[in-house]
């Protein structure tokens, strides 16, 4: 059968990884924010800003790694803004998130015009080079598939795998992880234990911004080599969907992100393998959104952190 062609499977695996990486990284970021008790629907805006600053930083310094650092810093800055509004000033987290999305879209298109004088796409910059992994072709049976799938990997894809493990470790094996989870479940207990709830939440949201920035940077200097207006194309929302579908856990985010990445990959695979189904590729893009709704409403219920979305106010002495 043509569909089981090892070259095609390898290619599909590669596309899946490429599509999943920004989703998984951003979803992991969203996890830090939401587990600490702050809803972050602004992931889309933070990703956009990350994607843009990565290209701008690379353009000015000529080094994509510095561009990557810029992206993480810019994402963290957007996260900090969200944190200040939501945590310090106890603002409405959803409204602030909407503002972050708008701000991200506005600032990046503005930056495009200021730096390159164009509305659509930036100049092309140097990509982060892929790492070649030699010797895969020698493995029997699956060698050819692996060669195509991970023969040359973007370092950010490797980082994504590392991040999943690191995030799991931080979330469940370290004091800060415990504090972040407590801040999202039962902030008053955390406060009684003598931990600063607001600071914990600010850290969570800033980390989420930094990771979203990294996820956006993968799009612009890992996958492509330029920034395009609105290039995240709703991936921030799909990442949010992956976060919810993955039940707010690192491994869940990873699996959901991979699955949604696979669905996005299908969108590119279908016109090649099954041309007669080309007309329905939009439906594969719709699946993640519908799955989330099913996950929230259906049999296997996704349960959000208990105190998510509610600003924590210390009780005052009368």
């Amino acid at each position, binding site marked *: 059968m043509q569909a089981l062609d090892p070259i095609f499977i390898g290619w599909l695996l590669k596309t899946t990884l490429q599509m999943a990486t920004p989703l998984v990284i951003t979803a992991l970021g969203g996890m830090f924010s939401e587990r600490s008790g702050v809803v972050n629907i602004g992931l889309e805006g933070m990703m956009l800003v990350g994607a843009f600053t990565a290209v701008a930083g690379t353009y000015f310094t000529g080094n994509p790694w510095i561009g990557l650092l810029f992206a993480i810093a810019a994402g963290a800055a957007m996260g900090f803004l969200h944190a200040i509004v939501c945590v310090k000033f106890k603002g409405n987290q959803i409204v*602030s998130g*909407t*503002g972050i999305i*708008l701000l991200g879209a*506005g600032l990046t298109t*503005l930056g495009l015009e200021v730096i390159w004088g164009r509305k659509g796409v930036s100049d092309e910059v140097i990509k982060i080079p892929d790492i070649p992994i030699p010797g895969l072709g020698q493995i029997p049976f699956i060698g050819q598939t692996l060669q195509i799938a991970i023969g040359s990997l973007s370092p950010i894809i490797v980082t994504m795998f590392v991040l999943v493990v690191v995030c799991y470790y931080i979330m469940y094996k370290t004091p800060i992880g415990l504090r972040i989870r407590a801040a999202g479940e039962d902030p008053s207990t955390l406060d009684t234990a003598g931990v600063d709830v607001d600071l914990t939440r600010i850290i969570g949201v800033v980390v989420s911004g930094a990771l979203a920035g990294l996820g956006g940077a993968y799009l612009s200097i890992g996958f492509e080599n330029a920034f395009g207006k609105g290039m995240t194309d709703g991936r921030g929302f799909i990442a949010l969907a992956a976060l919810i579908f993955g039940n707010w856990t690192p491994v869940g985010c990873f699996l959901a992100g991979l699955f949604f990445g696979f669905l996005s990959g299908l969108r590119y695979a279908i016109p090649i393998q099954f041309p007669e189904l080309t*007309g329905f590729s*939009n*439906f594969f893009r719709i699946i993640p959104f519908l799955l989330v709704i099913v996950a929230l409403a259906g049999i296997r219920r996704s349960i959000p952190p208990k105190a998510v979305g509610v600003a924590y106010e210390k009780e005052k002495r009368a």
Partner: protein
Amino acid sequence: MSDLDAGNQAVQEQRPPESILNRLKRYVEKVLNSVDSMMRNPAFRKQIIWTSASIVLAMLVAAIIMVLTGYNPALAYIALIRGAVVQWDRVLFYATPLIFTGLSVALAFKCGLFNIGPEGQLYMGAMAAAIIGYMVSLPIVVHPLACLTVAALAGFGYGFVPGLLKAYRGAHEVVTTMMLSYTAILFTQWLVTYPLKEPGEFQWIAQTPLLFPTAWLPHLFGSDFLHAGLIIALFAVVGVHFLINRTVLGYELRAVGLNAEAARTAGINPKWNIALSLGIAGALAGVGGGAEILGYHHRFRDAWSTGLGWDGITVAVLGHNNPWGVLLGAIFFGALRAGGNSMQVNTGVPQEMVTVIQGLIVVFVAAPRIIDWLEKRGIDYSAWIRRSPMGGIGHLATTVWAAGSAIEAMIIISFFLEKTPFAGLLVALAIIVGFYALTKLLAQNPAGPVVSLFTAVEWILIATVAALLGSSDMVYFTAPTAVIGIAVSLMTVMSSRASTQKAGGN
């Protein structure tokens, strides 16, 4: 008929005849009284202060961004306001769909629900209206009415489903409506790319055929943009106001929104009301989408909306979920859009600046306490200055210096970062320390002047590095900043020391 006439006459005979002028006067007085009592309401006044302060603050931040990117904010804002006044018909045209989507968000919010999916509901309504508009042939007035009714039904369905899921399965409406938004955009995209695409061999654009002219809404005041959708929108504002404040359903919605548990005890079915309110919200957004198609686009084209639904959320937030507030907010955003056009044409400031301003407004409006905090800071600060005027002068000078050096640093960065990344890094560090100093100063921390002195020292360092690198331009830029910085910081340190001594003496 004659009975009715007789009855009317009887009524007129019973009451002393009142002139129309008198009745009008009484009505105006009544309206003025209610406005007056609203203005005396402290909560309402607070809302107005918060909103307008957020707008001013956002404009200020945007002005700073314009200065940093090399534009003149004063000219830009003048062009923006002039553009909005001259093109008033464009303003109202842009405002029309925002009124609908804003009302949609506001109505759901009255029931305690955050409908962030008006974009999807708008798309579904628009698609439904377009289908009826080009597939069905109907006479002139009936046709648009039929289109809008179907649009309302489509939007209703699209809001009702997440409402049911929320009510009976507890699925959070923020997530479901958002996800359904994308679903609608992708679904309608598929419809216009494949089954409903305009036929024709050389027709590559994803769009439906043109609507029958019988379905078009007439344009208003001879404008090329403004259409009768605005009138429907105004009716919708009044209708939503009436629905919320004067009907049993509205009362129930508000009761559920305030406290679902209490409402249930009082015999109101919260689940049904939740589902219904999201449904009506969806219907409003759907009519908005339909009106845009019938009034302006005259066909459904892929990605026609440019975020009208998202802006609806912003408009509702800005209008504090009050129908009349939504009307004002929509007109304000329409003015920003129309003015943004002419701002770009006349002063070269990219139109995207408007999106930045919108985003900033939303962020500030999200947390009214920012304004409160600033107000308190201002009061504290003025009290502090009254106590020690010298310190105040020092702070003012240092603030001006810090802002000036930040702007200068931006210029330097844009010139030299490519040549000497190391110097660029130092400049960046200096800016960070400079801003740290600024925050210390604003916090009236005694460390402030010392930190700002440190910044000045760093500027000298940068100047030295520049001299070593042999970049004379950079020396010209950095040396004066360093000298001014040192002078001002020393002055501040002295003055603050003097003021602390005075304070210690007391």
